């Protein structure tokens, strides 16, 4: 039941926030803060009472920590099934922590309908948490939609100048690809029922369903599209720059920090394990898309003059590494992909918070109108520098560990794709330092009023810096939590490689 309570805390907190606004205009954000802290404390309390074996023992058969299954619509075999293992635990904790960051980053930014804003924020968190925990595919789809609608509202109501367009684009992309996933879910359950004799939407029942090759491919594609639109992968990424640019700061933080990770999670948990054969066939295409995304995202990030758009495209580039890591499907690359989800969540959230803080002060996101901000706000400049360096993959910070692991794992499978994707490291250096140059270096504009980061903002930034240094220098706790899950996933799908690896490096003639 504990997982249900966790989701109910977030949903209930949202309702409370709406009512709290009637008492006091500033009350909702405190309610929101309290709700997330409560959810975190509750989750950690639950986890600390669990047996530790599934978190440490890799091949004990089950890496699941908590499993709950209630009947919901028995006629169609739909159940209310939630479960948590190390991977979901990691992502739920990340969700809640970034929820705190989101609340902090929008502390003074939102000036109307605060109650509804905080409610939507909390409901998004509830939807994402549900996605990470749902083990019934129908329920999974439900949560997939639950996180979409409040996010749509966050952009459409509290967004910037072009919010209607951006919110609608976001909605249509996600909704259309979600529809494809729903069709795939239904076909999969129907096919499985032909073999088993009864309907079930449970992930555990559907694992190992054999479809004929053609059907498996099309059903897989439905899931793949839904997840890669969310990820987002080139060429399905175009909703992201618009959504990010127009969203309020908290929306961008949530979007980049955690919503994108649901796509990666879906590929890792659902798409590849359910359709191993089709995925194996499809892996080269997926990896090519990943590498294309890495490069394309980096080039377009460099081309932007809007601070938020630049960060948004850098996300496209970084999530390309996740796609590469997932389809390389060996332990190093998978660990890298998981680490990238966490590290990118933190570093990008920080950069969006930075963008929001600048926009609040200067009322522009155009970097050509900034310049020399270091002079006015050295603390802010130092923070921006730190996260720009994280973004370009400086060793010692979490993003480097992630990208290095992805690439070193990928190299054993696809050395040439690795070589292409590694160019993303050069691209990242170009756009990250260009951003520093345009916004913070150069000649400061005279007589500009520009407040440096205050205590609340510095505390938030410092927390994220510590997190990235920790992930960069001692990532082992995260790796250890993810390892049993990755082991069990690799038991289900041993490999996505159809031919012997490294054959083509040795074959190079010099």
């Amino acid at each position, binding site marked *: 039941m504990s997982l249900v309570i966790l989701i109910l805390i977030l949903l209930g907190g949202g309702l409370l926030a709406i009512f709290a606004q009637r008492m006091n205009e500033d009350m909702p954000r405190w309610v929101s803060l309290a709700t997330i802290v409560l959810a975190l404390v509750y989750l950690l309390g639950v986890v600390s009472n669990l047996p530790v074996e599934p978190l440490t023992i890799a091949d004990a058969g089950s890496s699941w920590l908590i499993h709950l299954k209630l009947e919901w619509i028995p006629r169609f075999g739909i159940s209310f099934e939630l479960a948590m293992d190390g991977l979901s635990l990691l992502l739920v904790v990340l969700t809640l922590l970034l929820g705190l960051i989101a609340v902090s980053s929008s502390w003074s930014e939102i000036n109307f309908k605060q109650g509804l804003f905080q409610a939507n924020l909390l409901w998004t968190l509830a939807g994402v948490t549900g996605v990470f925990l749902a083990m019934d595919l129908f329920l999974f789809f439900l949560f997939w939609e639950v996180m979409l609608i409040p996010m749509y509202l966050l952009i459409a109501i509290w967004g910037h100048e072009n919010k209607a367009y951006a919110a609608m684009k976001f909605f249509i992309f996600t909704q259309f690809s979600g529809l494809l996933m729903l069709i795939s879910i239904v076909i999969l359950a129907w096919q499985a029922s032909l073999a088993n004799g009864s309907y079930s939407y449970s992930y555990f029942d559907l694992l190992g369903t054999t479809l004929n090759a053609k059907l498996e491919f099309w059903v897989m594609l439905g899931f793949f599209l839904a997840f890669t639109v969310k990820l987002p992968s*080139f*060429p399905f*990424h*175009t909703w992201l*720059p618009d959504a990010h640019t127009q969203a309020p700061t908290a929306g961008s933080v949530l979007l980049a920090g955690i919503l994108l990770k649901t796509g990666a999670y879906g590929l890792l948990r659902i798409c590849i394990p359910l359709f191993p054969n089709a995925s194996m066939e499809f892996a080269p295409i997926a990896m090519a898309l990943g590498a294309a995304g890495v490069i*394309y995202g980096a*080039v*377009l990030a*460099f*081309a*932007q003059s809007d601070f938020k758009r630049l960060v948004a495209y850098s996300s496209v580039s970084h999530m390309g590494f996740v796609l590469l890591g997932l389809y390389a499907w060996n*332990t*190093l690359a998978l660990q890298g992909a998981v680490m990238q989800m966490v590290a990118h969540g933190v570093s990008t959230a920080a950069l969006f918070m930075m963008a929001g803080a600048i926009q609040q002060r200067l009322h522009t996101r155009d970097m050509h109108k900034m310049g*020399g901000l*270091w*002079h006015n706000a*050295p*603390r802010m400049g*130092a923070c921006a520098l730190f996260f720009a*360096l994280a973004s370009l993959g*400086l*060793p*010692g910070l979490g993003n*480097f*560990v992630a990208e*290095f*692991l992805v*690439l*070193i794992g990928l*190299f*054993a499978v696809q*050395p040439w794709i*690795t*070589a292409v994707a*590694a*160019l993303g*490291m*050069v691209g990242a*250096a*170009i756009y990250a*330092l*260009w951003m520093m*140059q345009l916004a*913070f*270096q*150069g*000649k*400061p504009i005279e007589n500009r009023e520009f407040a440096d980061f205050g205590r609340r903002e510095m505390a938030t930034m410092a927390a994220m810096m510590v997190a990235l240094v920790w992930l960069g*220098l*001692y*990532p*082992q706790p995260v*790796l250890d939590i993810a*390892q049993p899950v990755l082991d069990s996933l690799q038991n289900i799908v041993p490999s996505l490689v159809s031919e012997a690896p*490294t054959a083509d*490096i*040795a074959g*190079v*003639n*010099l």
Partner: protein
Amino acid sequence: MNTLSLIPALPLFSAILLMVSAGRLPKQISAILGVGSVGLSALCVAMVAMGFMADGQVREITLWTWIAIEDFTPAIAFYVDGLTIVMMSVITGVGFLIHLYSVEFMASDESFSRYFAYMNLFVAAMLLLVMADNLLLLYMGWEGVGVCSYLLVGFWYRDPDNGQAARKAFVVTRVGDTAMALGLFLLFTELGTLDIQPLMAAANSQWQVGGTLPVLATALLLGGALGKSAQLPLHTWLPDAMAGPTPVSALIHAATMVTAGVYLIARTHELFLLAPATLEAVAWLGLATLLLAAFAALAQNDIKRILAYSTISQIGYMFLALGVGAFSAGIFHLMTHAFFKALLFLAAGAVIHCLHHEHNIFRMGGLRTRLPVVFASFLIGSAALAALPFTSGFYSKDSILLAAWSLPDIGPTLWAGGLLGALLTAIYSFRLVFVVFFGEANTEPDKQAGWKMAVPLIILCVLAAAGGWISQPLDDVFPAQGHDVVHVIEYIGIAVPLIGLLLAYLLFLGKQLSLSSLTESSMGKALQDFWLKGWRIDDLYHNLLVRPFTGFARLCRNEPVDLFYNSIAGALRWSHRSLSSIQTGELRWYATSMVFGLIVLVAIMLRNAS
């Protein structure tokens, strides 16, 4: 904490303290932290070195396991042998002197503590690089020094040109770093470890000399070394990197960071010995770089750019040494070069400092009597750079040329090239001395160097003059290399720099020889301009790489992929409009279209019936 881990920890700790304090500390405290931490670190190095001299034992320490996934288990661990001791001594010793010098040089800068934070961070990263026991940790130091170089080149951030130079330095070296990262992937995938010593053992047991894999792996590592050490074709960033404060150029772009590539190859020399093709490429690239940079140095007017090209050229000698297998000689030249080039940069810094930031050597002149300490420093530094007999540079350059000569087949060619380089070196270094310190005074100095600047200069003078007698504990690190001493070759090696000195005297001081007929001709002017612009390699890269990249980026700026999605949206909107336009509300239209539709339907039915 033992002494070994204190060595990088002290400057790191000081850097963090200076960053967190964000300039709130008084300047004295920042200076004490900045200089003191490096000084203490140098003392620790001295202690470790003395212990090492006594017992000759390699020192190892593992702090913690960085990452452990299956067989991939790089640790935060240090490995200190003779090579590391040499490097650590140079980094902390020369580093300390440069830090001390900086206290005076940067005294009036408003970002005093930020400067020392970056400098200390650099020293920590550089120490990490040379102490790392595995290639991943080395890579962390490698990128760390790159970032510090970026930060310090762009230290005076208000001038966008400085930012441009800083980004260029970082991005160009990153190209090399990416190749190096691929090298690490290849080494791990094939040999299953990145720990340097086990890696060398595994390579020796599993790979054949001259096999494809060792050549490929070393070529990728070489890519990293070329970038960091500013060798062809990735050398273009170093002359621009002179935009940073001059002590930065002394520390990072002369004594330490730019020699990281030399260190990398020396550290992994067992791999390179398995790949003779790569090693030969190292020698040729070194030779090409040293000549190209020496010609470019002849044509420069900016005092720092002369020294920058000279650095590129001298590192070319180190690469030449590595390429011919004379690893000890390469590291020896690395050390002596650190002494005399740091000295030259600091002396140049003193000139610039005392001459209201003047960089152009032709607006200096006659400083011999006005800045005597600086003049003496420059004289000794240039003598060592030109490898005049009995200076430190003489011994190291001599052993490189001898080793090159002893190589079969290509040896004499490499030797002759190196000798030509030595002639050019003597000419450009004494051109600098004669133009700046002799002749008419063009600018009067407005201040003198204080003790914090003079003391480091004097100590470095001693090292540059006598550093050739230091013996390095490298016998256990590199394979022994004996070559017959050919006296004629040695005599030629002594004579050539002296000829260069004489030529420089005749051209620039005595004026007995004149180049005016040459330099006034259109050919001569073009050539001079060509060398001044560094053989126009920057222009080449600009047209070949930068412009296509920015052009492509500009082309894609508004998201070409959206054309596809927008066309779907457009098609839907069009069909929406066309369909809604027939809903006019006019009964006549509806009736007519119904009748028309009926006729079509009947016609189809009749046709099907028949």
